[in-house]
């Protein structure tokens, strides 16, 4: 906080011109280079100017008032003179008053001594009084009338009574008149002048109620409320009662200042979000299609948070097992879905109770941890449901106690209680004064720490908004119904979203699974044809693919490390080799994101034995831009090579890659890279989902700090990790690596029949036959006698 205050003080000194020239210059340079600072300085400057303009406008209006008041006095004096009265008074008036320039002295005296009837009319200003409007309202209904000027009168049922105290039965006639400006005040003699200081009038109005021509009295328990439209709210305004004499003199008296009167404020100006919510959202951007925060995004995110109530008590329909918590020594519940899809989840389960079964479990058993499938687990209800806030913030409640700055001030304390019942106290009793509601909240909280906060609020002795009874009745009538509607809508939206998410996830995963299968076939073929090209026979037991059991000499070329220079940050990068003479390509084994190796004991590195030179190819992508580098390297040399990729136009890149590729699809660099691009796209999709899920979890934890079962979020690795080295050409993105267990591989033996056809005998499918051939192989028998 201190930093922020000093920062603002610095800006204030700049905009007030209090900085020295040097300091100001240095600050201006800082502003030039910083858009956010520039915006901030501009904003504070505008506020400063805006404040000054308002003060000037007020000074002008005060001067106008003084002018009109003085003018009115002169008018009255003129009327007095023309209307007759004491001769002495008139003579004095003639001597001291400034006469209208056009009146000659002779004409003036003639008028004074004229014998015509010059009696003063009872109320000579009457004809200039503002015109009234008339309305008829029923006595048994709450009604609001609006005048042609926008004046609103709220008349609750029972607002008027007959002079004898009895109930009004017939329609009530309302007469309403309001001044249209200074001229009405002056000419109608409505101005205020019984105060030492000049007063500025926002509105002078006349209000009367009759029943069949008979005057009615106001019921003090349920008075009508008049709303006066104004361009700006002026401080210090008071309500005066007025009494008009027979001669049209106004006496304004009994000003009352509404102490602790609450002023409703439009909901759009009130912040009902938990503390820090907006900042958290800001830090989590971009989110889906949003790159900036907006009221709509903040509200949408907040209202979409779940306390878990709609899933019912417990953890929904998923089954769980106890696993070890990644961050603590305690146990956490891990869902069946996560165990199926996530390697990290499986590890945690293996470390805890490897033999346990998945079962539906209650949230009280243990906190839940979730991985990708954040929607499969949920918490029990705790904290203040966002739908309550959503229901409160409707336009129709905008004049109630709930739409005030004072209530806004109490919300952080209400959130901290994590108890909806505290909020419900305020919602269900909006007819009471705010201090009474604060006291009720304190009593409900009893000995809890937060009780003292509400007691302090209660000491402020704040009351209510005008006509609170109308709005409390409206709230009582509509709130529960609206809340249920919002909860239902939220539940429906959530289910629709989950369904759509699961559908799109399933679709994407199916697609990537299919691609991986295809890629696996392509790389398998690539390895086989490469081996044929080399003419080597290699022992293959222990591979994930099925291959020929053959023997051959061992060869250990020295290691060759290839790294891609990181002068630019690539989205993804790869390294391949090509042996054009043999029309084969291969993928270098990946050590990490930008380092690759041709390992000495890996079969994939054969070309280094069987060729004099190889082409080393480095490729990187930034969006759609391709960066490429190809170098020729002697096959028998080891060491460390760094490739600095160069941006290459797509057409040219494809040409180069094609020239380095073999004839078949398996040895096409373009095909290989197309697969890598798809895998990268899928990785980005998963990364985005993870990020969005992480934000939602973070917002949940912020909004419901007391929830015992609030989600922990484990962000499994989204950056590329080195695969198992024996994968060789089958190297895929790490994420898919963890799900590649979906691909079935079988251990087996390739048998070549007399007719030349190949048969694969797998251990799983034909265990007896597999055992027989395996024993034969072990004993060195590679040919069937029969």
């Amino acid at each position, binding site marked *: 906080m201190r930093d922020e205050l000093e920062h*603002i003080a610095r800006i204030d000194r700049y905009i007030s011109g209090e900085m020295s020239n040097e300091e100001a210059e240095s600050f201006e340079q800082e502003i030039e280079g910083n858009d956010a600072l520039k915006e901030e300085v501009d*904003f504070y400057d505008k506020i400063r100017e805006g404040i*000054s303009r*308002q*003060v000037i406008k007020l*000074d*002008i209006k*005060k001067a106008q008032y003084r*002018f009109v008041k003085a003018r009115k006095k002169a008018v009255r004096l003129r009327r007095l003179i023309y209307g007759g009265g004491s001769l002495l008074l008139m003579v004095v008036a003639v001597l001291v008053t400034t006469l209208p320039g056009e009146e000659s002295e002779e004409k003036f005296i003639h008028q004074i001594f004229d014998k015509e009837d010059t009696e003063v009319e009872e109320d000579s200003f009457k004809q200039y009084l503002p015109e009234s409007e008339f309305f008829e309202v029923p006595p048994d209904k709450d009604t609001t009338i609006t005048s042609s000027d926008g004046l609103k009168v709220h008349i609750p049922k029972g607002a008027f009574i007959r002079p004898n105290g009895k109930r009004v039965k017939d329609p009530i006639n309302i007469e309403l008149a309001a001044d249209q*400006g200074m001229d009405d005040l002056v000419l109608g003699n409505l101005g205020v002048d019984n105060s030492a200081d000049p007063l500025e009038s926002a509105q002078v109005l006349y209000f009367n109620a009759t029943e069949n021509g008979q005057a009615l009295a106001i019921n003090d328990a349920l008075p009508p409320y008049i709303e006066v439209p104004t361009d700006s709210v002026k401080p210090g305004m008071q309500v005066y009662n007025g009494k008009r004499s027979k001669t049209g003199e106004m006496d304004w008296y009994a000003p009352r200042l509404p102490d602790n009167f609450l002023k409703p404020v439009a909901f759009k100006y009130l912040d009902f979000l938990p503390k820090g919510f907006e900042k958290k959202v800001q830090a989590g951007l971009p989110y889906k299609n949003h790159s900036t925060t907006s009221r709509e995004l903040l509200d949408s995110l907040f209202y979409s948070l779940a306390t878990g109530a709609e899933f019912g008590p417990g953890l929904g329909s998923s089954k769980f097992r106890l696993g070890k918590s990644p961050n603590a020594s305690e146990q956490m519940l891990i869902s069946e879905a996560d165990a199926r899809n996530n390697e990290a989840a499986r590890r945690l389960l293996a470390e805890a109770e490897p033999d346990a079964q998945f079962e539906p479990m209650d949230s009280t058993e243990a906190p839940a941890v979730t991985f990708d499938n954040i929607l499969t687990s949920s918490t029990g209800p705790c904290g203040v449901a966002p739908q309550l806030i959503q229901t409160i913030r409707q336009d129709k409640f905008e004049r109630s106690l709930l739409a005030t700055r004072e209530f806004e001030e109490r919300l952080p304390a209400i959130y901290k209680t994590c108890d909806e019942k505290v909020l419900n106290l305020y919602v269900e009793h909006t007819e009471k004064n705010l201090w009474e509601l604060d006291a009720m909240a304190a009593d409900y909280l009893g000995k809890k720490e937060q009780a003292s906060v509400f007691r302090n609020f209660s000491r402020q002795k704040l009351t209510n908004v005008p006509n609170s009874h109308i709005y409390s009745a409206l709230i009582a009538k509509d709130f529960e119904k609206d809340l249920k509607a919002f909860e239902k809508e939220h539940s429906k939206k959530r289910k629709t979203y989950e369904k759509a998410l699961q559908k799109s996830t399933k679709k994407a995963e199916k697609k990537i699974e299919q691609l991986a299968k295809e890629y696996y076939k392509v790389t398998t073929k690539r390895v086989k044809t490469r081996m044929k090209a080399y003419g080597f026979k290699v022992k293959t037991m222990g591979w994930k693919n099925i291959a020929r059991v053959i023997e051959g000499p061992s060869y250990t070329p020295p290691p060759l490390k290839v790294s891609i220079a990181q002068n630019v940050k690539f989205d993804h990068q790869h390294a391949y080799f090509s042996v054009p003479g043999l029309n084969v390509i291969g993928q270098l084994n990946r050590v990490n994101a930008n380092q690759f190796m041709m390992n000495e004991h890996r079969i994939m590195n054969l070309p280094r034995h069987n060729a004099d030179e190889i082409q080393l190819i480095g490729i990187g992508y930034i969006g759609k831009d391709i960066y490429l580098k190809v170098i020729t390297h002697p096959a028998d040399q080891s060491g460390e090579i760094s490739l600095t990729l160069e941006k290459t136009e797509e057409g040219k890149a494809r040409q180069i890659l094609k020239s380095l590729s073999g004839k078949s699809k398996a040895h096409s660099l373009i095909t290989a890279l197309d697969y890598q691009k798809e895998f990268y796209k899928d990785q980005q999709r998963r990364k985005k989902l993870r990020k969005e899920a992480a934000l939602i979890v973070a917002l949940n934890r912020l909004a419901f700090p007391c929830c015992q079962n609030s989600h922990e979020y484990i962000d499994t690795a989204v950056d590329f990790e080195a695969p198992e080295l024996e994968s060789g050409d089958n190297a895929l993105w790490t994420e898919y690596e963890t799900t590649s267990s979906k691909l079935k591989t079988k251990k087996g033996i390739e048998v070549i029949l007399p007719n030349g056809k190949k048969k694969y005998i797998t251990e799983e499918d034909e265990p007896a036959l597999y055992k027989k051939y395996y024993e034969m192989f072990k004993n060195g028998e590679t040919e069937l006698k029969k």
Partner: protein
Amino acid sequence: MTDATIIEELSKGNHKEPLDLLYKYFPTIQKMVVTHGGKEEDAYDIFQDALMVLIEKAKTESFELTSSIKTYLYSVCKYKLYDKNRKDRSLSFTENVPDFLDDDTEEDLGLLQEMEKKFEIVDEILANLGQKCVDILKRFYHFKESMDTIANELGYANVNTVKTQKYKCLERARKMATGFGSIE
């Protein structure tokens, strides 16, 4: 008080006496408005706007009055009335625009319109900021009172409390401004 003195006082922020003196020109202006078919109450608004222009200009260092203040105010009011006529088509103007249009006056009035538009949002923000905030900001930015004085006058515990309250008020104003979009 001479015209030059009036301008000087206005530029320093001393408004009461100069404005009281300037209002003596109002009847002439009201007569001009009524003569051209306008309402008497319009004259009040038009004159207020003209005074606003005069005070804003008086605060700029480069302002030099080439005629009397009365003539200046009269020109500004006449142009404002003409502008209103263009929008309302309810007033009668027989003079050609160039006859009474003074380049400086038109520029000054254009400046007022620009500023009114620019500050429309600021005015709404200030109206909804709450009285506590407006009091602090008015005393600090317009009347240039020290934090000590503000704390004493408004009953705050100490200077730091006022600073913190002022910060919160400005933050609230910024949030409201975000709701409107840019206030550029």
